[in-house]
C-alpha cells in the first residue's frame, strides 16, 4: 500500500521549494488585481480575502456557521466509519455473497441525487445533511475495508489459528490490523468527500453552515465573502487530512515495506 501521495503524506524535501510556486501564483493574482486588470467585483485580491478571513475568524456568527458545518461533517464521517468498517468486515467474511452485489449496485449511484429524498425523509435540519455525508463517505471506507480484509495473507490467519486463536479473535487480532492500511486510505478519501458533500448540501438547502454563507454572499454579490467559506472549507479539509496522516503514521508503525 503506497503511503506516498501527491496531495498529502509524502514528505517533500525542501518545503520552501514546494511552497514557492503557490506563492508565485498568489503574488501574480495579487498583482493582477492591484493593477486593476480585473474588476474587484469579479475577482478580489487574495490579500483582501485573507484579511476578511482573519477578521471573521473571531466573529461568533461566523464561528457558529463553522461549528454547524463541523458537526455535520464529523458526525457523518464517524457514522460512515463505523458502518463502513463493520459492513465491510461482514461482507468479507461470508456475508459477501449477499452483500457484494448490493454494494455493486449502490456504489456507483451519485449520492447527491439522493439529497432531495433525505430532505423529504429527514427534514431540513442536521439529519438530512448528515445522512448525505454518510451515504457519500461510507462506500470508500466500506470498499477499502472489504478489499483489505479479503486480501489478508492466509498464512497470517493460519499462524493465528494454529496458535489457538478463535475465529472471532482473529477478526480483531489479524483481519482488522491487516486491513488497517487499506481502511485508512479509504478514510482519507471519505474525509475529503465528507468536506465536499456537507458544503454542497448546505449550499443546496440550508439556513446555516459554510455552504449557506457562500450562497448568502452570492445573492448579494459580495464576492469577497464568497471566497471566505471556500478558503475555510479548504483549510478544514487540509487540517483534517493532516490529522488523519498523523493518526496513520501512529497506527502503522509496523506496516510498510516489509518483505
Amino acid at each position, binding site marked *: 500500500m503506497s503511503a506516498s501521495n501527491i496531495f498529502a503524506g509524502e514528505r517533500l524535501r525542501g518545503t520552501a521549494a514546494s511552497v514557492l510556486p*503557490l506563492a508565485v501564483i498568489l503574488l501574480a493574482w495579487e498583482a493582477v488585481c492591484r493593477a486593476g486588470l480585473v474588476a474587484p467585483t469579479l475577482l478580489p485580491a487574495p490579500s483582501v480575502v485573507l484579511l476578511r478571513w482573519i477578521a471573521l475568524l473571531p466573529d461568533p456568527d461566523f464561528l457558529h456557521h463553522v461549528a454547524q458545518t463541523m458537526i455535520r461533517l464529523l458526525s457523518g464521517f464517524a457514522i460512515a466509519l463505523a458502518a463502513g468498517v463493520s459492513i465491510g468486515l461482514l461482507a468479507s467474511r461470508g456475508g459477501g455473497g449477499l452483500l457484494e452485489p448490493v454494494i455493486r449496485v449502490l456504489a*456507483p*449511484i451519485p449520492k447527491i*441525487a439522493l439529497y432531495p*429524498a433525505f*430532505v423529504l425523509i429527514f427534514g431540513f435540519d442536521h439529519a438530512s445533511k448528515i445522512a448525505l455525508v454518510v451515504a457519500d463517505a461510507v462506500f470508500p471506507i466500506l470498499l477499502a475495508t472489504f478489499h483489505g480484509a479479503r486480501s489478508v495473507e492466509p498464512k497470517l490467519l493460519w499462524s493465528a489459528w494454529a496458535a489457538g486463536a478463535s475465529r472471532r479473535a482473529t477478526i480483531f487480532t489479524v483481519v482488522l490490523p491487516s486491513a488497517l492500511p487499506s481502511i485508512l486510505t479509504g478514510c482519507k478519501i471519505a474525509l475529503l468527500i465528507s468536506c465536499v458533500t456537507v458544503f454542497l448540501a448546505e449550499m443546496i438547502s440550508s439556513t446555516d453552515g459554510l455552504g449557506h454563507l457562500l*450562497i448568502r454572499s452570492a445573492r448579494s454579490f459580495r464576492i469577497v465573502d*464568497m471566497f471566505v467559506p471556500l478558503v475555510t472549507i479548504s483549510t478544514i479539509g487540509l487540517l483534517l487530512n493532516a490529522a488523519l496522516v498523523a493518526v496513520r503514521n501512529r497506527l502503522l508503525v509496523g506496516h510498510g515495506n516489509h518483505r
Partner: protein
Amino acid sequence: MKSALRKLGPAASTVLSLGALLVLWEILARLAQIDGFPPATEALVQVPLILGERESLASIGASLWRMFLGGALALCFAVPVGLAMGRNKRIAQALNPVLTAAYPIPKAALMPIIMLWFGVGDLSKVLVIFLGVSLPLIYHSFHGAHAVDEKLLWSAMAMGMKPVARLFKVVLPSALPDVLLGCRVGLAMALIVMISSEMIARQSGAGDLLFNALDMALYGDVYAMIVILAAIGFVLDWVFERVRRRLVHWAESRQDAMVPGGGV
C-alpha cells in the same frame, strides 16, 4: 443461498440484488407511510412519463452533453499534466501545493463565482465539470507515471526515443491501468458535479428537474428522477468498466476502483 448466488454469475446477482433493494424500498415506504417517501412502484410509474416528455428528456440530454464535454476536455488536459508530473520532479513540486489546496474545495461550489464570470450558460457548467474531473485524473495519472519501471524508460532511451515520444509510447501505456482508474473516478465525479451544480444554479438540467419536482411537492417525480440519475450512474460505470477491462486485460486485475475518489 450464497453458493447459489455465486453460481448465478455477477450479472444475475446484480439484477437480483437490484430487485431486492426495490422490494425493500416498497416495504419500508408502505410501513413508514410518509408523504415524502412514496413506495417504489409509485416512483417507477413516473419514470416513463418523465422520459416521454420532450422537454425533460432534452434537459437530461443537455446535462449529459455538458458532462461529456467537460470530461473530454479534462481528459485532454489532465492526463498529460499528470503523466508529466509523475516523470518530472520539478513539475510535480510546482503543481503539488496548488493541487493540494484545491483538492478539498467542492468544485460545484465554485458555481456561483464562475457564474459571475461567465454567466449562467453552458460554459460555466462545462467548466465546473472540467475542474471536478481534472483533479482525480491528474492524481491517478501521476501515480501511474510515477510507478513506471525505470528500466523500461532506459531501454527506450537506449533506442533513441525522444522525451515526448517516451511520454506517449512508454509512460502512457505503462500507466494506463492507473489512468483508467482515474477515468472511472472522474466519471463518477463528472456526474456528481453535474447534478450538484445544476441543483445550485437551478437553471436547467437533470439536477434542476429534480429540485423543481421537490419544490412542487411532486414526490413521485422526485424519486423517479433519483431513479433515473442512479440508473445513469450505474450504466455509465458498468459500460466504462467493460471498456477498461478490455483495454488493460494485460495488467493484473487490480483492486476495484473505489468510486468515487474525491473533490466534487
